[in-house]
């Protein structure tokens, strides 16, 4: 009867613990493993240039490292990094624009030759669904990476190598030092988890 849980009587312990340890911790050593793919995919659907996207992701990590003390632990690490990345992407567009030196005006409504055409130009083309489709696709990409980040590290790695990068079974087995049957078990688990996750979030 002596083992009484004192923290039950003294709720101040709990609050103190919260004050010392915020909800989210920051640890830059794991950043590349955990978030680089997600951030890269996020960038590439907005910049459309692989080299540029890689540079932007790298810049984001470095900027995040520099302003680590500003991280309050209110949001998760990834959300915080994405907010930095967003700024980087906007800055990138600004830079491109200032290189051009001026804003581009593409439609000239004072052109006498095409007089009267402008109304037609403004009507939405029902057959042009490419823009909307590509938006949906980039969101699907985000959803897939969201689900991937919920998988255990090993399953996610194998799944990425096999499904997204399309490596052969033997190569992955050699690289990760596992047997083929082992690989298929991991793939099976990953696929089941991914299908469930996407079912909830997407389909």
């Amino acid at each position, binding site marked *: 009867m002596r083992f009484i849980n004192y923290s039950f009587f003294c709720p101040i312990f709990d609050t103190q613990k919260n004050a010392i340890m915020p909800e989210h911790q920051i640890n*830059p*050593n794991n*950043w*590349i493993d955990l978030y*680089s*793919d997600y951030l*890269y*995919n996020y960038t*590439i659907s907005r910049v459309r240039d692989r080299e540029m996207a*890689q540079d932007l*992701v*790298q810049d984001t*990590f*470095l900027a995040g*490292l*520099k302003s680590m003390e500003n991280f309050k632990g209110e949001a998760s690490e990834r959300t915080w990094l994405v907010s930095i990345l967003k700024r980087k992407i906007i800055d990138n567009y600004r830079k491109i624009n200032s290189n051009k030196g001026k804003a581009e005006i593409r439609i000239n409504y004072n052109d006498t030759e095409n007089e009267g055409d402008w109304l037609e130009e403004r009507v939405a083309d029902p057959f042009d669904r490419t823009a909307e489709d590509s938006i949906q*696709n*980039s969101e*699907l*990409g985000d959803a*897939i*990476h969201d689900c991937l980040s919920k998988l255990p590290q090993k399953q996610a790695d194998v799944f*990425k190598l*096999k*499904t*997204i*990068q399309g490596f052969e*079974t033997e190569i992955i087995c050699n690289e990760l030092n596992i047997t083929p049957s082992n690989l*298929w078990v991991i*793939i*099976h688990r990953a*696929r089941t988890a*991914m*299908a469930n996750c*996407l*079912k909830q979030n*997407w*389909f």
Partner: protein
Amino acid sequence: MSKIKIVIPCDEANHVCDKTQYKNATLWEKIKLNIHLLYCRACRDYTKNNTKLTKAIKKSKVECLDQSTKVKMKKTLDNAIEEQSR
């Protein structure tokens, strides 16, 4: 001839189904899978979801960083971490 199995258990069917998604299954395996799917509802559902997943990933054109780029990024970040802690 009794060695040839036409009826396969569910776990094997799922394994073949996974292989089919990566085009790794042989023709005989695929025939066996389809025979299994004729009478097994659970595996039909699994196959349906699995195919859907493959299609979604293909459609979304998700990309990952390759390993060498990641190693390079990690090195740069590690250097920066070291510099900062100094």
